[in-house]
């Protein structure tokens, strides 16, 4: 059986979730490998969410929210950006590299960008292969 990546996406309600809605209303298609978990803001996304996703079987995690300056809550995405810029390096240092954690700004108007993003991430993870049962961050089932 071919490997189908499982991608968990954490997105904000105001930009990326709406952007993904637009992808739908525009009938643009993308790979069915993504599962979206909606949050009010990227500022809400705790690093624990990412670890939990990997633990539970995700092959990659996508985090997406409003472009800088567009945050519905004024600065939630800036808080998120700073958090991730350090956390992703810590993940990479401990073996979870940039083929596993993706970040993007997708506005409510960027339906096409969302479709392209999902396709690209899916392809990249497909090429990288399964997250790996042997990785310590993964629960042994």
């Amino acid at each position, binding site marked *: 059986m071919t490997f189908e990546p499982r991608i968990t996406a954490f997105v904000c309600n105001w930009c990326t979730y709406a952007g993904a809605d637009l992808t739908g209303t525009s009938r643009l*298609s993308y790979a069915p490998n993504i599962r979206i*978990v909606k949050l*009010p803001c990227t500022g809400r996304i705790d690093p624990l969410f990412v670890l939990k996703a990997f633990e*539970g*079987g995700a092959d990659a995690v996508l985090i997406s929210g409003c472009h800088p300056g567009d945050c519905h809550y004024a600065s*939630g995405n800036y*808080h998120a950006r700073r958090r991730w810029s350090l956390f992703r390096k810590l993940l990479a240092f401990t073996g979870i590299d940039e083929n596993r954690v993706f970040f993007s700004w997708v506005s409510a108007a960027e339906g096409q960008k969302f479709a392209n993003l999902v396709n690209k991430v899916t392809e990249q993870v497909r090429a990288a292969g399964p997250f790996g049962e042997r990785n310590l961050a993964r629960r042994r089932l």
Partner: protein
Amino acid sequence: MRRFPKYVNAGRALMARIGVFICHCGENIGRTVDCPAAAAEAAKLPGVVLSLDYKYMCSDPGQQMINKAIAEKLLTGAVVAACSPRMHERTFRSAAAQAGLNPYLLEMANVREHCSWVHSERAAATAKANDLIRVMVEKVRRNKALFPIRVPVEPTALVVGGGIAGIQAALDIAAGGGKVVLVERSPSIGGHMARLSETFPTLDCSQCILTPRMVEAASHPDIRLMTYSEVEAVEGFVGSFEVTVRRKARYVDPEKCTGCGDCFNKCPLKKIPSEFDAGLGSRRAIYVPFPQAVPNKPVIDAANCTMLTKGKCGLCAKVCARGAIDYKDQDRLEKVKAGAVVLAAGFELWDHSAYGEYGGGRLKDVIDGFAFERLASASGPTGGEIRRPSDGSEPKTVVFIQCCGSRDDKKGKGYCSKICCMYTAKHAMLYRHKVHDGRAVVFYMDVRAAGKGYEEFVRRAIEADGAEYVRGRVSRVYRRRDGKLVVKGADTLVGRPMTVEADLVVLADAMVPRRGAEKLAQLFGVGCDTDGFYSEAHPKLRPVETAAAGVFLAGACQAPKDIPDSVAQASAAAAKALGLFAKPELEREPVIARVNKNLCVHCRACINACPYGAAKDFEIKDRAGKLLRVVAEVNEGLCQGCGTCAAVCRSNSVDLDGFSDEQVCAQIAALE
């Protein structure tokens, strides 16, 4: 008091009994997702007692189906798998509420926009729909009944700034039945508009149209003026702000003063430059800023009055028949309650001394637009005659330089100040009306005259009144020994350098926010852009609101604006405030953060991170009032529910209603 609607149950008290309702959306979902199969799959999920699919869930029969299920199966939660929650969440939640289920116990799984419309392969789409439904069932199982936050609304608006924008907002709010407290930091309301001679594009006299409004504001029974006052501190939130206002010492009791003027006619300090007249005229140490001031009661300028600085003089007290002068007067702090706030802090002119080559600030006859307004004003220091500040002679050639500081991101400001093209045309026109043999030369970069009657106005200045428009920048202005100002520039249309010998140079300085505007913004939790102008909540769709709920913007504090735009925005802000006052209570989405005070160790990470200043210190005291611990607390009136606090809390002592750790964790786990 919160009112608790009577719902069948509060959610978690009972074993989960969840209903799943899958919509075909005609063919929109059903074509790609096998809805009956998804319903069968959902029925197997733990806690699900009912799983149905139907052609149109949002239709009346569809909603009836949900209502019936809630009533008959005593559902503790519901998942509607249909379109995006942005489309119909409100619809289904209202339906749930009608059937007696707390609306926040219903969630939607987005199987249309995020699934059937973007995937074509049926098996994969159905598998994804199953996942999305399972995730939401797991979330709903952990949902809590939430209740809209109700905040009582104080039907008073605090308007900060007594210029035309503030006055207009105050009058409109009062006319709509609200009460207004209008705070102005100078001794009189009126703002910059009171200083203008005539206004474009109709050339009606500024005083004639403004002063009746000033008087109306002062005499309106529902408007309270607080002049010579500044906002000191702000507490509370939309619906019930508590604002501390510093009432600066006037040294004149406004109750006793009749405004007769004996005091300022006798004051021996005659040479203090008048701020109102842009330094071209003078005032006394006890003064009203201008004859039509409202209130027309003097104040003493403590920095200049010798009685206050050295204890010598006391003449004004002697001549005041009413005994209104009180040299021992002190600043007082007064608290004002308000449900809404309109910020109309206004603007000032950019300090053009950064353009040393124009001689502004050094050469007496290089003046700014306000100085020219005062020269042209019938009530100004020259009685409306255009005179050179240096020698009082009538200037025969006046050069107007536009974009002084505007559209220059190197030394000035990157933005266009928007009003200068118009007022420069007006200045040239007024000058030519007053000095018939005079020459008005305008150096411009582009003429931007977008507005009703604006382009026609500029054409009139050029064609009827003979203003000479030169497209080009001025490189230097210097003073020759005979007193003439030599203006060196370029006419870029013909491509050659150009020199004009002028008697007066008027710089159209950029509009910038008032000094102290940023501090005021911080007090109210309003953001500023990089230039210091107040940030609106959305540049297109919410141009009057700010990120702080209940705080609205009017006038040039938000961006450079002319009078019509300022007035229009002020009326819009007034409408927003009145909209708030239309109901006795505000109802807000209950998605807010909560601190577990037993676990909080007060590292203050959330307090630092909160974009709304909603997270604050909270002192836990025992019954005797002894301080036990300090922890963080979230003010539910200020919290907007972004959840940034929850993510920065290392001990997870902060959680977000509606997107709690338990809910999110369960959702992630459900994706296995």
